[in-house]
């Protein structure tokens, strides 16, 4: 009798384990400080997801919607971790996370260390200036000759700064809050960033204005104006799966998600 019971117990646990393993986890890393792509909030809504290891803190944003859709289609349990911008690729390569969905551009440099999916959003490089600055009506790069320009550490925007004629290229800063302070305190004249992020900064701070370079902007590569999802080079299966999901999300959907994220972030 005892032998039959223990055999039954073993079989049952095997079945349970098999069932559990189909409940696979997908760990996504993002900065949680890059609105409207990703930001943190204390309020739980249908758009948010809880932040791993931080009870009471949720993340929202375009990247979060993307992460949720991918996890849903791949039938995996979504876990989102907040990691500093510079720590994202190291975290990916040391297997702490499986995907980076953080408004990251697929540059040649980064491709040396990670693999990228197809683009999941296409953007534009713009300038953020002080509401009382002389640059509100500027339309081209040469209008910004001689400015003090700044961007986030380790981003393509920091590299683009040198295209501004006679620019004073200030040391990069680590976070967008620091960058916004640099402009509002008039210690920098221009912050170079991408459109949705600029829109979100301007919406939150009435001392800032966005300027689009309609008449002659930065010389950029494709990779500079798109964002893609980063994966470990060895994860070829996952790469195919992610690209398959992205193919199902139309440009209209993407733009709608971004607009909706901008709106929510304004609240």
């Amino acid at each position, binding site marked *: 009798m005892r032998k039959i019971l223990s055999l039954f117990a073993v079989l049952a646990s095997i079945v349970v384990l098999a069932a559990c393993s189909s409940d696979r986890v997908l760990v996504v890393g993002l900065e949680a400080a890059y609105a409207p792509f990703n930001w943190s909030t204390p309020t739980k809504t249908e758009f948010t997801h809880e932040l791993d290891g931080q009870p009471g803190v949720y993340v929202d944003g375009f990247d979060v919607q993307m992460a949720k859709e991918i996890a849903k289609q791949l039938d995996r349990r979504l876990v989102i971790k907040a990691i500093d911008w*510079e*720590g994202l*690729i*190291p975290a990916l*390569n040391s297997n702490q996370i499986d995907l980076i969905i953080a408004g990251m551009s697929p540059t040649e*440099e*980064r491709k*040396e*260390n*990670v693999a990228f999916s197809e683009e999941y959003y296409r953007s534009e490089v713009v300038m953020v200036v002080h509401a009382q600055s002389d640059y509100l009506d500027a339309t081209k790069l040469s209008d910004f000759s001689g400015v*003090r320009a*700044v961007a986030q*550490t*380790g981003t393509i925007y920091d590299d683009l700064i040198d295209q501004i004629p006679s620019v*004073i290229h*200030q*040391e*990069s*800063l*680590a976070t967008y809050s*620091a960058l916004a*302070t*640099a402009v*509002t*305190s*008039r*210690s920098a004249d221009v912050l170079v960033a991408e459109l949705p992020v600029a829109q979100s900064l301007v919406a939150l701070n009435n001392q800032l204005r966005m300027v689009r370079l309609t008449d002659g902007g930065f010389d950029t590569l494709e990779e500079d104006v798109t964002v893609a999802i980063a994966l470990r080079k060895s994860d070829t299966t996952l790469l195919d799966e992610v690209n398959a999901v992205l193919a199902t999300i139309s440009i209209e959907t993407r733009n709608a998600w971004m607009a909706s994220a901008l709106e929510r972030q304004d609240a």
Partner: protein
Amino acid sequence: MILTSISDIISKYHSFFTRGLLYTILLAVLGTAGGFLLALPFLGIKTTKIDPIRDSKVSIFIKKVGIGFTNVYTTFFRGTPMMVQAMIFYYGMSLVIHNVTGNNYWWKPIIAGIIVIIINTSAYIIEILRGAVNAIDPGQMEAARSLGFSRKKALYLIIYPQAIKNALPSIGNEFIVNLKDSSVLSVIGIFDLFKATGSVVSTTADSVTPYIITAILYLTLTSITALLVKKLESKRHGGEMKNV
């Protein structure tokens, strides 16, 4: 594997590390030397004696204000993180200078950083020197006063020189602290060793090896200083007490 990356990274990015190292050393040297000089007048104020019989009412009032101000100064600058002081000062002054003069282009992070580290260090050195002055045998002051030296002359000729000499090892330690703490000034955009390392990390996507190199660099700097401080101490005291 780690060793090849270390030499690899050093050969490719040595200019980053060198630049960062220079800024770190600059901040520590100016901060400690400037902090010491700035501390001296405050020390003079803090060691003032109020003579209720002989001082005039005006003079007593001025002395009390001076002592009060010095206490607020040391409490504030020792009681708040240097990072916070740097942010308030750099960004705050940036706005003020722009609004008042219209041109704040000359107001660079390194200027604000040097000022902040000098003021911050001075607050600590004031307390170090005050302790050193109090530790001087009261007999020194009594002998000086009985010869006819005023309290002020006695302090400057006899007490302060001895106190400063006694405080040198502690001030050397402040320098070591500054070598490391200068890294918080990177938050306002100063290219110190810590920020330099960050740049190497973002360029190489290797977040461990550059920091190992930096740790070795900081350790080298602090060890050299610690050795010099030790030499200074033994020169004055002639050896440790452990042999007694």
